[in-house]
């Protein structure tokens, strides 16, 4: 049984939503809001939003796309915004730039639609993260499995999705530890490939557990 040099520390994260003083009435405003809003706000409406709506596995990607669809009735633009995969980003600034570019291109091509009032305003909010160690640590793959099984949705999202921004790497806490501390690079890659857009958090967690079980059985 391989024992890690450093244990994996399971953490729970909880989020406060802070309401910003910025709101948008139409697509032109949205473009401006994307430019002016804080990084915490972009994080809230993309990374955080996916976690908040993890149980929607068909067609929900981020708050911007959903607002463009439901409040502005622009399915084409919504689809483009929804197609951005947050796992491709290790910096919020890059994600903001891509969102801005998509909205700006649409507004340039459709100036009248861009000025049309939405059914409802979009309010920019921010996520404030508070993390607390759960007091569970893993030195071996068996212990890791036990800890993984006990994680809530919020903790799983913290380690699997939000971690990319924290690490500034195209990976997640679990994979980083498995590869770096237990030398399980192949398992780490398989875990990282689990699609969070087409799985609920429960589904992703179950797939991860199955992959770990397979590794333990081999």
């Amino acid at each position: 049984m391989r024992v890690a040099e450093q244990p994996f520390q399971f953490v729970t994260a909880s989020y406060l939503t802070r309401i910003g003083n910025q709101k948008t009435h139409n697509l032109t405003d949205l473009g401006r809001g994307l430019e002016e809003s804080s990084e915490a706000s972009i994080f809230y409406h993309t990374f955080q939003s996916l976690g908040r709506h993890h149980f929607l596995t068909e067609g929900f990607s981020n708050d911007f796309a959903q607002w463009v669809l439901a409040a502005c009735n622009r399915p084409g633009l919504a689809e483009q915004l929804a197609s951005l995969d947050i796992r491709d980003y290790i910096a919020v600034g890059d994600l903001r730039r891509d969102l801005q570019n998509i909205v700006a291109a649409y507004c340039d091509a459709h100036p009248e639609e861009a000025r049309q009032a939405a059914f409802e305003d979009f309010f920019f909010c921010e996520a404030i993260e508070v993390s607390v160690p759960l007091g569970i640590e893993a030195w071996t793959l068996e212990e890791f499995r036990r800890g993984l099984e006990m994680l809530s949705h919020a903790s799983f999202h913290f380690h699997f999705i939000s971690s990319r921004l924290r690490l500034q790497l195209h990976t997640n806490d679990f994979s980083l530890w498995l590869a770096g501390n237990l030398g399980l690079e192949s398992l780490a890659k398989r875990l990282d490939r689990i699609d969070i857009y087409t799985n609920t958090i429960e589904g992703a967690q179950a797939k991860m557990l199955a992959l770990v079980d397979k590794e333990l059985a081999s």
Partner: protein
Amino acid sequence: MTAAPRVTRLLRLDDYIPVLGAAEVSELRALAGRLQGRTVEMVNSTSVGGGVAEILSRLVPLLEELGVAVRWDVITGGNDFFEITKAFHNALHGGPYDMPPQSFEIFLAYNEQNRARLQLEAEFTVIHDPQPVALINARGNHAGNWIWRCHIDLSRPNTTVWGFLEPYVQRYDGAIFSSPEFSRQLSIPQYLFYPCIDPLSEKNRELEPEYIAGILEGFGIDPKRPVLTQISRFDRLKDPVGVVRAYQIVKRYFDCQLVLAGGGAADDPEGGRVLEEVRQAAQDDSDVHVLDLPPWSALEINALQRASTIVIQKSLREGFGLTVTEALWKKRPVVASAVGGIPTQVIHKHTGMLSHSVEGCAYQIRFLLSNPAIAERLGEQGHQHVREHFLITSSARRYLTLFLHLLDGRGA
């Protein structure tokens, strides 16, 4: 009719494990770890009746069980005070303010009386709604954090009343609103705490099928045909006549029934007039069931919601819309107007359907009646949405997170 057993014992955190899972409950305990023995004082204006008292009566025991030393105080005042605060309430919702100028002095005098009577020395003081807002005068040099929890919609307040209250609000360390739409532009941090329901309360807990069947039979509702339901007061802002019109369109395509259940007709002349308009619009259709229920009908409402094929909330204006939350929790497909806090709950085509007109409402109902698998998926996802965000335990988690955030000195 089979009687449903009443819940009498005080609920414990572990009672929520079947609803939330053990991991969520154990993480609540982990979050509360650093808050053991920390003092919190909640202050509102009534101990029974009304949504705030209902929430606090469940929230305070949960936080106490988690090790937080919570004290719940209720302010006192004479009839003149509560007449003024009722006028404030209506004015903050956008109505006129007709009280005499000295009403502000009376309001402040009662707040001062309460300030002298209450302890107000906790590390975290949470003042609920406008009635006790001037208790912030007690802050002095005390080091604790003061938060104002606003449960009402401030999007279009009467400027006289808001102009009076705002300077007090701005002296708090933060304000909590139920929806971004309900907030104001303030210089203090504003946090979003959704209203919540208790999944184990009489209005929301699971019911035996026999009990539900008995309720339907009692009201003469046919369980074999689709049932469309709107639960709300007989109030024009809930547009019950619009619901009847939408039902009449749907009826051309589906042999369905409509249930309009709520209160407010007996003790409110306006409610009585609306009820009459609803009956006129229904034109003696025996498939339209208009039920004027007394306030103690939680179990009956629970049963009606659970028996519904589709739940409607066709409001013209709405607060957060907890009747929508209740329906989603019961896995019912919901068709609702995109007003107030409803779009937060009904994510269009994901957790329900939004509409903007009578015809739109009727169309979405027809669509769901024609596509039961989609309706079922919406109901399931709506339930998950409530489980994640709109339960009393989510509210406890938000308070714990806020206190930790303030404890770390990051609330400024």
